[in-house]
């Protein structure tokens, strides 16, 4: 291989690195440049006083507050729905599952993890149509359907991280309590899970991030542009990512656009924080046993 070719390849690698950094830098700095001026309390609360809004004494009409509350409630509900099933499934796959059945479960969960989020949304929508026809006339796409669909979306993340963090434990830790006479369940609850809790939590935080950023699922399952704070599980609601999408497609004034930029910064900050925490926890969990296996 001659010199010029070698130089070209090295040069190209550096160029692609620079392009990547530049692209992401431009994206974030553009967002900050446009959005920073609009970041203030009235962006969130409009003309209502923050205290009144937080205590839900007054409705916030022209701020992001309902969207932020909607996203928070949505994330909480879906993660609470997904955690027990996901963690239990992960425990089953890591500890109980027979090797004969494991590939089958793995296949289904891998497919679920790969399904485009719009399909999960379509599933939620179809579910609401089905329930509307066969169960109750009052069921339309709503908060509950959205959180169910989002729970399905993030289930594989929780399952995988739980399974991996239990499976990656050193053999000695897995077997010590068992050899001392602990039962399988005791071993899982008091030894295995506490030993790698940070791994499991990193999966849950990743799931929270995915819930918060996802737009395709909620678009099909009941999010609307103006709804206020959701009052019941069957009501429609607002959410931050959908607000951004809505602004981008149908803004009427510069004011509204500025609010869109503000909302983008808030969402970006939330998501990056969550993903960073998740990554740090994952690294901690991985490093813990790296040295003494």
């Amino acid at each position, binding site marked *: *291989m001659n010199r010029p*070719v*070698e130089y070209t*390849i*090295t040069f190209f*690698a*550096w160029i*692609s690195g620079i392009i*990547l950094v530049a*692209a*992401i830098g431009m*994206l974030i700095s553009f967002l900050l440049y*446009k959005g920073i001026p609009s970041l203030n309390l009235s962006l969130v609360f409009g003309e209502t006083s923050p205290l009144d809004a937080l205590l839900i004494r007054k409705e916030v009409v022209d701020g992001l507050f309902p969207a932020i509350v909607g996203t928070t409630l949505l994330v909480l509900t879906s993660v609470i729905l997904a955690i*027990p*099933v996901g963690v*239990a*499934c992960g425990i*089953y796959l890591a500890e109980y*599952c027979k090797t004969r059945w494991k590939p089958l*479960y*793995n*296949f289904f*969960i*891998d*497919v*679920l993890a*790969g*399904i*485009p*989020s*719009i*399909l*999960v949304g*379509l*599933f939620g*929508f*179809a579910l609401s*149509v089905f329930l509307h026809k066969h169960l109750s006339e009052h069921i339309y796409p709503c908060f509950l359907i959205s959180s169910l669909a989002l729970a*399905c979306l993030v289930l594989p993340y929780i399952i995988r991280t739980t399974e*991996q963090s239990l499976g990656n434990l050193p053999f000695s830790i897995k077997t010590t309590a068992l050899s001392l006479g602990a*039962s399988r*369940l005791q071993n899982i609850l008091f030894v295995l899970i506490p030993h790698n809790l940070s791994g499991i939590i990193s999966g849950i935080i990743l799931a929270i*991030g995915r819930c*918060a*950023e996802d737009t*395709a699922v909620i*678009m*099909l399952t009941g999010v609307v542009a103006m709804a206020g704070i959701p009052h019941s599980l069957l009501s429609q609601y607002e959410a931050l990512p959908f607000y*951004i*999408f809505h*602004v*981008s*497609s149908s803004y009427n004034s510069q004011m509204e656009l500025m609010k869109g930029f503000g909302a*983008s910064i808030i*969402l*970006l900050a939330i*998501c*990056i924080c969550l*993903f960073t925490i998740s*990554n740090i926890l994952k690294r901690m969990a991985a490093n813990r046993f790296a040295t003494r296996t």
Partner: protein
Amino acid sequence: MKSFLEKYAERGFLLSAILSASVTIFILSFMFLFSIPLLKGGHIVQFLRLGWNPHDGKFGILPMMVGTVIIAFYALLIATPFGIGCAALISVFSRKGFSSLLRKLVEIMTGIPTVIYGFVAIFLLVPLIREIFEKGTGMCVLSASIMLALLILPTIVLFISDAFNSVPKNYLDAADALGATLVQKLIYVIIPSAWKGIISGLVLAAGRAVGDTLIALMIAGNALQIPRGLADSARTLTSHIALIIASDYESPEFKSIFICGLILFVFTTLIVLILRLLGYFEILREK
């Protein structure tokens, strides 16, 4: 008493596992259930044919399929060389401090919400593309492909750099002993022994590109036509689903979106099968 608890806990775990696996089956069966009326009517051929005009009873989803394939293809075409270049930079060329910094940046990129990529693209990329082509709105195949490439780039980079890192160390030592330069090591040792990982990363990225909704919906223009060039507006299967959700549950155009859903589902399953064949999940689990 203890064995009683033990038994029920195990059953609970088993039940959750079955529930999780059946979510996939539920999704598939709902897609089927809702598209049965159309499949039964023998309209399948009609669906694959050209044209979309609900008033004339035309529900061809061919334009959407072509749009999906073209946008995803260009995105992969743009992202692949840069992805491999970046991965090589992280794993081979740069020093440890810089490479871990770059890697962290790429990891952070995976956390940026899709809707934000789309939102920024509307105000940053679309006007630029409009200037370049000097016609149309700038919402076209090219804009969507560029943005989609940026979206799937982290997946490609992280995966391929992992594949590069998992090349056995004695291979590298042997190459070093023979006096190979970094580029020679990359071309003759690392890439040949990590090709499975490279392909897996690209297949995974293709899955992401086809499955993404927001970018195509926001900046591909959503015109119902088969795109004939980079400057044409196009609609993908995913954005088609998002656009058609109509209030009339009985209308044929509403049911046709479930056919789109089925196609996407089959595609996802294919991706998972290919990745299995390549041993991707084994690579992932070993880590």
